[in-house]
């Protein structure tokens, strides 16, 4: 198509198109253009498949590296408690235990706080100009690199928590949960740090879920005589339940994989103790500590095996989270804003809209 098409102004159109020799060609296709268009389409597909390739490649590489340990220990690795580098005996249980326990503490702390933040920053407790900065502030936590949170954990949080831990031990040591004398570092501080770090994930997504509940529903509930909190408990939270559950799962995924901050405050002792005041170790922490200098293939393999376990656990958690959100969407629940919020795994929730 050339500019000749424009040589006459609109006014100069002849009444009979055939006579005026108007170009009515709608069949010619530039071959090159067709190739480009097809190519573009296939190019996009190629790029899109790359992301699948990355995941498969990742699993394969880690599996390959873990192979010596898998062959040596098999599934026994999962429940063996021995971690003896010179003796080349490895077991994952203390690490799995530490990872799960600290994440559980994190969730127990972060769920109520996160939902409270979500409620305060989405319902009309506060004027609008205060509400969104509040949400923003909480999300800022997510933007702070975890190594800095760890630094703060060492210097500020542990000294702050120590009297509390002493108190728990002194008065509640008949409970196995608080049955050992606190060291300072340990599973409880690690859980607290993790709770702080997953809080933004849970708060932000829950807030979106709550905001997606139409305002009319609130008015309807209130007009039936329900108080604000009755509306929240009987209408909003049930309506958003699976979305909030999805948020919690994403938070869990993040807590499981968090490395630096935990390494810095957990004490790094591979043991299984019922006491939260005791030391612990997590899979990411042992990877960070031992990976760079693992010498023996079996040691590397064991670490890779641990990585594989962590990979599998987080994949599982994430798949459940995605499916929950999707399930909710199908049931016509309040889903609209959940999928856009991307779980970023270890560092911060990415949100497109403020």
């Amino acid at each position, binding site marked *: *198509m*050339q*500019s000749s*098409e*424009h040589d006459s*102004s*609109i*006014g100069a*159109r002849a*009444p*009979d*198109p*055939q006579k005026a020799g*108007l170009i*009515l*060609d*709608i*069949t*010619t*296709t530039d071959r090159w253009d067709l190739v480009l268009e097809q190519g573009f389409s296939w190019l996009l597909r190629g790029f899109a498949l790359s992301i699948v390739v990355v995941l498969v490649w990742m699993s394969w590489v880690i599996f390959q590296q873990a192979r010596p340990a898998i062959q040596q220990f098999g599934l026994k690795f999962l429940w063996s408690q021995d971690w003896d580098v010179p003796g080349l005996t490895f077991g994952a249980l203390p690490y799995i235990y530490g990872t799960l326990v600290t994440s559980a503490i994190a969730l127990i702390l972060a769920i109520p706080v996160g939902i409270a933040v979500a409620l305060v920053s989405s319902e009309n407790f506060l004027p609008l100009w205060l509400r969104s900065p509040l949400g923003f502030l909480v999300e800022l936590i997510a933007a702070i690199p975890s190594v800095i949170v760890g630094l703060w954990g060492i210097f500020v949080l542990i000294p702050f928590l120590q009297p509390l831990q002493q108190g728990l031990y002194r008065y509640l040591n008949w409970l196995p949960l608080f049955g050992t004398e606190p060291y300072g570092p340990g599973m409880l501080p690690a859980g607290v740090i993790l709770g702080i770090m997953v809080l933004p994930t849970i708060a932000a997504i829950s807030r979106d879920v709550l905001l997606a509940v139409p305002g009319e529903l609130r008015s309807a509930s209130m007009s039936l005589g329900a108080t604000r909190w009755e509306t929240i408990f009987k209408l909003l939270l049930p309506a958003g339940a699976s979305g909030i559950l999805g948020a919690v799962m994403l938070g869990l995924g993040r807590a499981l994989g968090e490395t630096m901050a935990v390494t810095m405050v957990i004490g790094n002792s591979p043991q299984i103790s019922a006491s939260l005041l005791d030391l612990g170790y997590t899979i990411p922490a042992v990877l960070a500590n031992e990976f760079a200098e693992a010498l023996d293939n079996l040691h590397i393999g064991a670490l890779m095996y641990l990585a594989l376990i962590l990979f599998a656990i987080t994949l599982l958690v994430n798949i459940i989270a995605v499916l929950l959100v999707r399930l909710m969407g199908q049931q016509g629940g309040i889903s609209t804003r959940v999928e856009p919020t991307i779980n970023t795994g270890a560092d911060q929730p990415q949100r497109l809209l403020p």
Partner: protein
Amino acid sequence: MKFPQTNPPHKPTNPLGAASPAAPIPGLLPALKAKQLSFYYGSQKALEDVSLDIYHGQVTAIIGPSGCGKSTFIKALNRIGELEGKVRVEGAVEFFGQNIYSHRINLNRLRRQIGMVFQKPNPFPMSIYDNVAYGVRIGGRYSRTELDAIVESALSSAALWNEVKDNLHKSALGLSGGQQQRLCIARALAVKPQVLLMDEPASALDPISTMKIEELIHTLSQELTIAIVTHNMQQASRVSHYTAFFSTDEGRIGQMIEFGPTAEIFTAPTHPRTQDYVEGRFG
């Protein structure tokens, strides 16, 4: 019920009065010719067996109650409907004799020949100038001066030039709704289409803007084939030369009920359902 007929049809009206839908009107050349067109969204039939000519150089209005398939029909005329979902088409649409549903058709060329204006103004989030130049740039390389001329001519044709000539490089999103819609018309005109399809172009606008759009349609009809979907009967009677009345049957499938010169459709419809509709008894 009489409507002021502002546009005297510039061709003799059909002497037969109530033509059967497919009957050609002598002396007029169909720019678009729908032949037994049926349209399906997925497995859902939306339009059944429509045969209708859109005459070259005329304004054809398509009216009917909501859900009667008039938008579906107009979107079948430049094959834009198939971008909106999985669709299936039976029958044919001929553009100056060429079946646009033939596999040989280059859709991009087709759509350049048959422009479209949508229900809601949808300017691109770029400057006014870039909006108008968009389609032109798609089609080939032009020098700055050529582009300037095309943009000015298109904006003038859309009666927008005087309002925006000092703000050509400001965002199109800053225009009022009516201006945005005229910009969309200018954008369509800039690529020199043979036919302009308008899907309720004024339904989202206030009365004054609507009036301006109608004036514009009137002016454009001197040079362009126009098909306009509207649910506003006064509007149809004001702007069009020919009118097609669509309605649904019991199965909620759209059909064309009647076609004829606008004056006749509104004053002496032959089909009782048309009569009911134009007299406001149903729809």
